[in-house]
């Protein structure tokens, strides 16, 4: 066997300061991939969630499909779709990332809509609201806390998964992890790991604030209980 290699100190600060620019741009790419995935996931899940709420028969196939997507491992899903969407393309990364948000967002949209008291919808109809108005002005706003709770879970999940998409060419901080492995060098891996955890924590904290701001009628105490 060859000589044991040394991966260097856990953190080499001089490397970090010399690579600041690269690290920052990878962090921003990580954020961008995450935001796009969650936004696209939401655009798909909201109408489908409303549809599943109204049309009971849609639930089994819809949740079955989203459930299968959720169970398939990330690296496997990436390689499964890569022949269609292109190896090492942003589309491949995004399709995989979006597919993991669907189950979480669909489930929370449906749960939120189901939690709207029938009396409230009835009152809105009694006041002369059209079905579309009831949905947009009463039911969806009341479902918002649940939807946003789903957005939080989805965001934290996607931040972690973006690292894996680096293996297929597009992966923000994941590229640092690969670099560390290729060069047998600890620091980039540690930087990728720590920034990924911090990004997840910061996004979550930001979404909690957004949740509070967008649902002023919910008492603050019950919100913290998820």
């Amino acid at each position, binding site marked *: *066997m060859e000589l*044991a*290699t*040394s*991966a260097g100190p856990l953190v080499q600060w001089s490397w970090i300061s010399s690579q600041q620019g690269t690290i920052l741009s990878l962090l921003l790419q990580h954020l961008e991939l995450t935001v796009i995935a969650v936004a696209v996931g939401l655009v798909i899940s909201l109408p489908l969630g409303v549809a599943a709420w109204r049309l009971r028969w849609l639930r089994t196939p819809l949740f079955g499909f989203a459930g*299968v997507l*959720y*169970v*398939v*491992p*990330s*690296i*496997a*899903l*990436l*390689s*499964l779709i*890569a*022949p269609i969407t292109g*190896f090492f393309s942003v589309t491949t990364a995004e399709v995989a990332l979006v597919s*993991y948000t669907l*189950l*979480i967002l669909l*489930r*929370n949209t449906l*749960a939120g809509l189901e*939690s709207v008291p029938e009396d409230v919808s009835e009152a809105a109809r009694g006041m002369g609201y059209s079905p579309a108005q009831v949905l947009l002005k009463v039911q969806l706003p009341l479902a918002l806390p*649940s939807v946003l*709770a*789903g957005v939080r*879970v989805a965001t*934290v*999940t996607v*931040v*972690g*998964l*973006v*690292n*894996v998409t680096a*293996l*297929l060419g597009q992966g923000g901080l*994941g590229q640092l*992890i*690969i670099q*560390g*492995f290729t060069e*047998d*060098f*600890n620091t980039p*891996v*540690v930087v*990728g*790991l720590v920034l*990924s*955890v911090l990004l*997840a*924590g910061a996004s979550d904290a930001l979404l909690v604030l957004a949740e509070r701001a967008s649902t002023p009628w919910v008492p603050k105490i019950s919100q913290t209980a*998820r």
Partner: protein
Amino acid sequence: MNFLSQVGAYLTSGAQWSGMDGIPNLLANQVEISALAVVAAVIAGVGAGAVLGHTRRGGFAVLNAANAARAVPSFALITLLGIQPAIVRLPQGGLIATGIAMWALAVPPILTNAYVGVQDVDPEVRTAAVAMGMRPAQAFWKVEFPLALPLIMAGARTAAVEVVATATLGAYVGFNDLGTLVFSGLALHNNVETFSGALLVAVLALVVDALMALTARALTPAGARASAARAPRGRQLLPRRAPSMRG
């Protein structure tokens, strides 16, 4: 020949079914490391979760720590462990790096669910058990633990599916499991090989999910089944499986 029939031909060719790099060996390695990691995580997670849930102490800190641990991407952890000289030097370095990272992936959902499951047992039920003459240990094993079992099994199911799927990444640091097909295919631009490996992992994950669901049902006492059906009401906002950090 189109892509899918190439995959079919690859998966059915005799060469893929024998030797160290044959599908049976790769599959066995993946199942073995996952089983080891999940069993070790059940021992640690259920042990710690049940004690803390029973005493109702330190819950806030435990749940927060488990949540934070979930944000650690497995890919980063596997890689970091996989380049440590102390681990690389070992004859089965890849296995050890993958095993530790998979254990770390499995503990949080199991620990959280064990804690919540035991802690959620109605205090009146405990009092009733003690009033019937059970010793505290009996009350725990015969009442609290069985009532918490559905939630504990849900945590173990989440963990098992995530681990068996994520163990694929172990091939990145030299552990010879199904990920070997994925990574060697990526390196050699052999899409058929990559796709075949990915397909096998996906099927394996679905099979494990189904098996864990059946095990959970078999292990759940009839009395707790009814309470399990009622219990999740308050937890509607969370996905059935806890959020994952399969990265």
